[in-house]
């Protein structure tokens, strides 16, 4: 720990250190890029993974927070930078250091109006082009007359405005062409069977070959992070189920962990077991749904029904214990909402006995099929370096050989007490991503097997005060959701409402990588790439 501080201090004497969860360093805006390069490339630091990029409005200044992690050493550092210019806030982009920053900076530009120098694309991403004001600034006027419900559809910009720094250090406005005038652009989405939601890809084609993909998000942007700022902490929990609805338990687990960390609440052992089991059940159900939809996208409609048939069994378990099949609202601060249903253990055991047989059937029906293999093998190749740079975590990252499982790297729940393998593949293609998920189902079954009979007796939750106030500070916590590392950042000013909540979703990173993976492939490959990445749209748009 001290080493990181010393190294940063000697590289950048003007850096200011703060106490907190991790080493936190504030640096002037114009030094961020140099520091970023240093942090990534220094042999002892190797901060090659940008886990979270958050925009902030600190009142007198606007800024960003970088949560950096090293995939080699697994140490963390938080870098903060800010600008006091609220009229025309400019910061330097780190998109060339960590590619995932490119899309996150667009989000920050949307919400805070901060423009990033050298980011080639400063279009709106979630909001409309004619949106007035910057909704996440604290002085934002929510009067509906300023932004009335529009009756006309938004224009898509083919030319992106951006800010560039010239060689002699001058900063000037510039334009960046996304699509040429004579490009044959077709729209995949927003209403399209293969995007699994209202996601919109604009695809430039050369015959059947993809020249470029421009993802267009925001069709179901609900401003969940903004809503959280006016809700009490227990209320914010309910919104997490509505992000990635296929990892509802995992998302909520992350937020609960983050709040419990801040309050330093110790969760009863029984609650930890239940949470872990629920997370794994959720993962199985999500991966089953992935299998179903992947088969459907590749044209095997029958397989789709088999997957859904088996997923029902898990939803039945959820329904008994949580009272709902989709938005379960189960985890709560200090434990879980209710104790498990008396049938829970019996049903889980039935599921454990049933799933291996079902998986064998799946492999016979689909995995072994020549057509399926031809459609997936060698398609959408993602290298390990790119996976880290684009922050492609979860099964998609592990298929590229990156050991990015949060359950292994920083165990939470009772993951340190169970024995399971982290499924790693090195091929990096669509088939590897598919196989990682299929094998993870078996690993999850294995985890459940170890836990189902050992749930300790005791309370399922600790009693919390009706009004929860978090001590001042910035808190960040990650869990392994079904499609990658799901991070929660809470900035608290010591009040009963959070000052800023940020959900760093794995989905946004996955969408960011689609262009890289699908270029020079056929249009049909875009479908298999999308299916193998398994993004969920509410998770992207938030």
């Amino acid at each position, binding site marked *: 720990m001290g080493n990181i501080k010393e190294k940063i201090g000697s590289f950048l004497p003007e850096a200011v250190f703060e106490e907190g969860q991790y080493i936190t360093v504030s640096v002037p805006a114009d030094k961020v890029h140099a520091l970023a390069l240093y942090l990534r490339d220094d042999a002892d630091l190797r901060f090659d993974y940008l886990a979270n990029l958050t925009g902030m409005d600190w009142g007198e200044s606007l800024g960003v927070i970088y949560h950096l992690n090293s995939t080699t050493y697994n140490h963390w550092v938080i870098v903060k930078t800010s600008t006091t210019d609220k009229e025309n806030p400019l910061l330097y982009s780190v998109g060339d250091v960590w590619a995932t920053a490119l899309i996150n900076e667009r989000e920050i530009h949307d919400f805070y109006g901060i423009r990033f120098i050298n980011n080639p694309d400063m279009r709106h991403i979630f909001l409309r082009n004619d949106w007035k004001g910057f909704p996440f600034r604290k002085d934002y006027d929510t009067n509906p007359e300023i932004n009335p419900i529009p009756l006309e559809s938004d224009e898509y910009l083919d030319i992106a405005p951006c800010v560039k720094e010239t060689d002699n250090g001058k900063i000037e406005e510039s334009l960046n062409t996304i699509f040429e005038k004579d490009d*044959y652009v*077709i729209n*995949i989405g927003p209403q*399209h*069977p*293969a995007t699994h939601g209202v996601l919109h890809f604009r695809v430039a*084609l050369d015959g*059947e070959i993809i020249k470029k993909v421009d993802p267009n998000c925001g069709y179901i942007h609900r401003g969940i992070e903004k809503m959280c700022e006016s809700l009490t902490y227990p209320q914010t929990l309910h919104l997490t189920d509505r992000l990635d609805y296929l990892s509802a338990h995992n998302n909520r687990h992350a937020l609960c962990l983050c709040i419990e960390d801040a309050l330093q609440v110790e969760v009863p052992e029984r609650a930890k077991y239940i949470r872990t089991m629920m997370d794994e059940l959720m993962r199985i159900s999500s991966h089953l749904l992935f299998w179903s939809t992947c*088969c*459907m*996208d*590749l*044209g*095997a*409609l*029958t397989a*789709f*029904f*088999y997957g859904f*048939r088996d997923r029902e069994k898990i939803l039945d378990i959820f329904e008994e214990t949580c009272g709902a099949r989709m938005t379960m609202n189960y985890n709560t601060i200090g434990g879980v909402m209710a104790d498990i249903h008396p049938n829970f253990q019996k049903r889980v055991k039935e599921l454990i006995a049933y799933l291996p047989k079902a998986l064998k059937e799946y492999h016979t*029906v*689909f995995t072994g*099929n020549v*057509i*399926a293999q*031809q*459609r997936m093998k060698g398609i959408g190749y993602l290298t390990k370096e790119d996976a880290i740079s684009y922050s492609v975590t979860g099964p998609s990252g592990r298929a590229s050989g990156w050991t990015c499982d949060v359950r292994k790297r920083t165990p939470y729940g009772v993951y340190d007490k169970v024995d399971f393998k982290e499924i790693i593949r090195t091929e990096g293609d669509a088939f590897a991503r598919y196989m990682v998920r299929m094998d993870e189902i078996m690993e999850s079954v294995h985890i459940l097997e170890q836990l189902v009979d050992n749930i300790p007796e005791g309370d399922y939750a600790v009693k919390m005060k009706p009004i929860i106030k978090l001590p001042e500070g910035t808190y960040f916590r990650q869990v392994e959701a079904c499609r990658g590392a799901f991070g929660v950042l809470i900035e608290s000013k010591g009040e009963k409402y959070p000052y800023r909540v940020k959900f760093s979703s794995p989905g946004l990173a996955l969408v960011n990588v689609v262009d890289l993976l699908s270029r020079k492939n*056929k*249009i*049909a*490959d*875009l*479908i298999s790439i999308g299916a193998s990445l398994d993004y969920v749209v509410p998770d992207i748009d938030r």
Partner: protein
Amino acid sequence: MFDFSVVTHWIDNLLLSIMPRSCALFIEFILIGVALLLAYAVIALVLIYVERKVCAFFQCRLGPNRVGPYGTIQSIADMFKMLIKELISINHVDKFLFRLAPYIVIMASMLSFACLPFAKGLHVLDFNIGIFFLLAVSSIGVLGILLAGWSSNNKYSLIGAMRSGAQMISYELSIGLSIMTVVIFAGTMQISQIVEAQRDGWFLFTGHIPAFIAMIIYLVAGTAETNRGPFDLPEAESELTAGYHTEFSGIQFGFFYLAEYLNLFIVSAVAAVLFLGGWMPFHISGWTSFNEIMDYIPSIIWFIGKVGIMMFIIMWFKWTFPRLRIDQLLKLEWKYLLPLNLVNLLIMVLIVIFSLHF
């Protein structure tokens, strides 16, 4: 075995006895046309129902079960829905071609439908180049699909139509060559004679290895010709929504839908005619009493039974396999099926020359 030509001759004689020849012919043409159209619609409705049920059972579902007993009236209800739906007129389409396209597609499948021998003596178009005629008219359909895609002014439709064009033209080769194999074996192109030649055993058995290979290739290529899964790229739902017929509505869409199912019937029927003896009962040369028992089963049942088996196999393909990609599809045709077909043709020629068949 009942010969349907008794009925047709009776009608013919009846008409000739009360009116001059030209009038009688005119009335007969109209009668045949109406009968064909009716059969066409009824078969399509039955097929839609069957496909739904088959697909449902593959997918652990029940399929239609509300309208009528076991949902049998469902497809008729759907037909009425299709008939009374509004034809949505779309801006910026090439109106003439847009309206022409469904008719071309349905005309092509009608014409090939007329070539089928449904039962002994129940055969509309039968002349010395029958199978050649069938091939020729069935390839008109691709023109309709291309026109539909082109005139829709929709990028999905256009890509779907182009795929369809490439696919159908390629697989036409395989179909043609595998039919050619059988024609060499039968020594005739007249459909009735091809059926007659299978009196002592179906070509699938008498032609043994090359006939078997030709049948497999024919089934693969036939599935591709009808744009059904796993070769349903032109209307690949998860890529191109509905492909070339995305913009069509009401009865215009209905025509495409109808033609699609009828093409399935036609492909299966041609397979039955070429390899399984059409309406010819299962005969084994020499076993006279066995053959006579087989003859008691009406020829139309034989025909429909064989077509049914073929259709079931094609449906089985569709509901099991994932979809191919366009380059894989073309590779399969040009690199595997076509060379195999040519070799197979050569083997068949040698077998016929040296009389190595049964």
